[in-house]
């Protein structure tokens, strides 16, 4: 009987641990981020790894299934680096880490966040390239990476974005203009080392012959009909005369 009770207790404990571990996977990812950041204002102090889920944490928003949808510590004096673990927050929609002092590179794993709508990492000191994996983000509408020290080329794969700002970096290469890049104008790209195209003058307008010919044909028709009617009706007169 005692053995049974102790086995049951162990099972309950094991189950509790398993549940805590599973529920905390997203919390763990956020904690990995917290451990990699310096937080002088203690904004992240309630990010507690022993919590069952991170949904009560400051600047964290979850959906109805307790899965993280927003990370909002923008303008928080944070420094340090981003972590690849962010890529496992599969329901994340808004990653708002703008206006901090974050350095290092943008992890490629951010390309796994298929529900991401907004990626705001502007006003930091990020280096390295813009990951081409961002092209996998089919719901991404806002991509603001301006005011960093990003280098390399702009990945051509970005397709769904409404609002793009990569200005004030050190990006090189050509400015893409095809596909959804036709929505972007120089403001999105300024203050980089990009190959800015000279402003091409508009092509000469195609000649429109339609409007002038309609006028000409009307006049021609009138003249023709008058001439024919004169000939037609005067012919019998001439014959009889």
């Amino acid at each position: 009987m005692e053995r049974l009770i102790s086995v049951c207790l162990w099972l309950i404990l094991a189950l509790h641990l398993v549940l805590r571990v599973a529920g905390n996977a997203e919390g763990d990812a956020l904690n990995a981020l917290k451990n990699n950041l310096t937080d002088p204002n203690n904004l992240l102090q309630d990010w507690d790894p022993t919590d069952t889920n991170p949904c009560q944490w400051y600047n964290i928003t979850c959906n109805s299934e307790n899965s993280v949808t927003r990370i909002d510590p923008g303008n928080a004096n944070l420094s340090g680096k981003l972590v690849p673990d962010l890529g496992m927050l599969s329901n994340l929609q808004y990653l708002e880490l703008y206006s901090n002092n974050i350095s290092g590179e943008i992890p490629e794993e951010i390309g796994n966040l298929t529900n991401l709508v907004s990626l705001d990492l502007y006003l930091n000191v990020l280096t390295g390239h813009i990951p081409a994996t961002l092209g996998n983000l089919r719901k991404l509408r806002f991509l603001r990476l301006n005011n960093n020290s990003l280098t390399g080329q702009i990945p051509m794969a970005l397709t769904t974005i409404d609002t793009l700002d990569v200005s004030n970096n050190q990006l090189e290469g050509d400015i893409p203009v095809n596909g959804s890049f036709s929505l972007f104008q120089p403001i999105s790209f300024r203050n980089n080392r990009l190959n800015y195209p000279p402003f091409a003058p508009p092509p000469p307008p195609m000649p429109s012959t339609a409007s002038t010919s309609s006028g000409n044909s009307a006049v021609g028709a009138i003249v023709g009909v008058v001439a024919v009617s004169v000939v037609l009706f005067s012919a019998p007169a001439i014959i009889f005369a």
Partner: protein
Amino acid sequence: MKGSCPSSLKIFRFVLLTRMLFAGHVSSTITEDDIKCLKGIKNSLNEPDGKLSNWSFNNNSAGFICNFAGVECWTEREDRLLGLELRDMKLSGQLPQSLQYCQSLQTLDLSANRLSGTVPAQICSWLPYLVTLDLSSNDLSGSIPSELSNCAYLNNLVLSNNRLTGSIPEQLSGLLRLKRFSVANNDLKGAIPLSFENNSKVDFAGNSGLCGPPLGKCGNLSRKSLEIIIAAGVCGAVFSILSGFGYFWCCGRKTKSYPQAR
């Protein structure tokens, strides 16, 4: 006195020349000031329902205009407009010149209002980076300015449901990024520029005077032309008959009298 005249003329010419040189290079000498832009819009347009009541210019913290109704900023912390959408607000008045201070504006949507006057010819020097311009369902008149071709980044141009007249400027074919173009339900006439032939997102319906693909062919004789032709034909026929009779009357008599003399 005599000597100073030519030298001041030289200076004047030099200043004029420098100004002309610079005019070619500098596209806009206007400094961006989105707060001034929005103040001007609020003052120029009449908005009866108080939908712009949260446009308050008292608290001037960074990015405060970003919370205004209809305003979307590039980033939350800067007073720089990305988009302005003031749809269906019974706005009346003309498109305000203060728009020129919103230099970073990418989208301007003032559709479904009561705006009057013309589409300003300078709108593309006011807002050179426009990607979307929607002025549909207003009371705009006058012609479509050919200067709209200077909005090089324009993807969407919607001017439908206004009272625009004149023809569609050929220069709009210079808008290389233009995808959606609607001028439906206006009073436009003339031939549609050929460059729009292969574009599926265009709408020219509701303009009785417009012709050319994708609408009917140009060159079909209009009703007026047909009436002129018929009138000319009738007049020509009547004239010929009368002159024929006249000739018959005077010369026919002579031939009749001739055989009798025999």
